């Protein structure tokens, strides 16, 4: 059975940047509805340690605040391959090293998972503060649902 890692990324002390961690915690609450070969990881603000976190998985789904130019609180599911090859301009992770750089490093080292996806949520405000912005807070249930659907699609495709 393939090993799947769902990794929340973000800094809950920077308002909407914490959405990756909030959604991860929501998923853990409903993990009985999801396949049991998924491991849930709080990746914090990432950095080079991400390289170690995802090397052991076949498939990885990152959850993060991503500025993809969408409407606030909208989500988008990216295949990291598309983001890199099509050079899609998105800004991921407010903290230090960029996930895409770490993914590329992992690939060149030859220890990357088969597939890496990014579930991105369009943030409004990433200034210091512990509360999500109103728009995102209002849409949490919808976002959890979208994420659940995407995870199920990923599972369907590998069957």
């Amino acid at each position: 059975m393939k090993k799947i890692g769902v990794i929340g990324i973000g800094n809950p002390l920077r308002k909407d940047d914490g959405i990756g961690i909030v959604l991860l915690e929501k998923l853990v609450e409903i993990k009985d509805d999801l396949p049991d070969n998924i491991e849930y990881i709080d990746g914090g603000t990432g950095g080079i340690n991400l390289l170690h976190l995802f090397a052991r998985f076949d498939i990885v789904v990152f959850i993060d605040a991503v500025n993809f130019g969408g409407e606030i609180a909208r989500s988008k599911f990216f295949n990291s391959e598309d983001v890199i090859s099509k050079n899609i301009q998105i800004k991921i992770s407010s903290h230090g090293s960029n996930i895409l750089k770490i993914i590329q490093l992992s690939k060149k080292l030859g220890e990357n998972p088969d597939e890496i996806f990014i579930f991105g949520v369009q943030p409004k405000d990433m200034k210091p503060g512990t509360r999500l912005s109103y728009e995102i807070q209002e849409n949490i249930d919808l976002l959890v649902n979208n994420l659940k659907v995407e995870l199920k699609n990923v599972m369907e495709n590998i069957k």
Partner: protein
Amino acid sequence: MTRDFSINIEHVTRVEGHGNIVLDVKNGEIKKIEWQISEAPRFFEAMLRGRNYDELRTITSRICGICSIGHSLASLKATEDALGVKISEQTRILRHLATNAENMQSHILHVGYLSIPDLLGVDSVFPLVGTKHNDSLLKIVRLHRLANEMSDLVCGRTIHPIRLVVGGLSAAPSEKQLLDLKKDLAEGLEITKEVAYVVKSVAGNFPDFERETEYIALTSDKEYALYDGIIASTDTGKHPDYKNYEKIMKEYFVPHSTAFHAKHYRDSYMVGALARFNLNSKQLHPIAKEVADMFGLKPINYNPFMNNIVQLVEFVHNIEDSLNWIDILVDEGVKDEKPKEVKLKAGRGVGIVEVPRGILVHDYTLNDNGKCTKANCVIPTNQNHANIQKDMEAFVPQIIDKPEKEIEFNLEMLVRAYDPCISCSTHYLDVKFV
């Protein structure tokens, strides 16, 4: 050659935090040379005031994302010293393992990712991926992963440990987990030897610079001191009176820095891997000694660039040391221990440990209710700032005829050799209202 030039590096890269190098040369004469620390202070000591004894570790762990285990251990030792708590032998051994794990994490990160690019003439580790160095890089990544997993196993988390608590550990690894770790460490030891050969092949690129200075570290009759020991200096010998550490680590303030500087017997001293080696090299484990010999290291070594190499030597020592402790734990059987019970009383406690960058002190005063009323933390990087400055003053005249770019590169490399953790060190700001 007389010439005018100025170098202004804002900020030095591949170090933790923000520090600047300023060099001003007129007619070939040095007018100004400064190692500046420009980060905002963080007021951790003030945050501890009024906090309960069992919160102090959790808070101070956050001083540093690299040395969170070391800050935790210094904090626990200070708290336990104040409350008169005696830990069990099993806790002592597990704390040794935690210390080794952190030293390994930090050293391989510094040598492998931050320092090797200097030796290979590249800006960062990323350009090395996919080149002929790919295999070495993969080995370094594996060693870093091993150290991370070890921290995770012993402390419950890779950084900001959760199992280390006042009086003991909230949970201990199982014998099976320890035996698995032993297997991984044995493999890691072989990989480290291979990495050492690679580093040896390029170590000649470190500048041949020496400046006599004082080295301060913990020392112990029993072992290569990391978790426990007494303060010692290469100039003045042993200083067992640990509660009066301030007589050794005399901190002072300079205008160009938001971080304290420190001195003892001379104008400055150095702490860290090289200081430990210079005081305690005889107690290194056998393979670590072999690696030190391979690089021709002998105490007292006055070349600050060799701090990088000693970090690699210590990495080997930490693996050998951990293998010994695991054998003892498994032979005696891992017991299901609860942390020691704490009886509150007022008092002052001081905890001193060696962390990757040098000697670290936490000093707490608690009241009858177990609340902290006063705190002081002496951070290794603070103690090194003055020595970095003095090294620069001695180093620049030796390289002043080189092209500016090369001087700049050499000065950055000097700062990086100290592996400074600048954010940890900026805890003081002298605010004067006029």
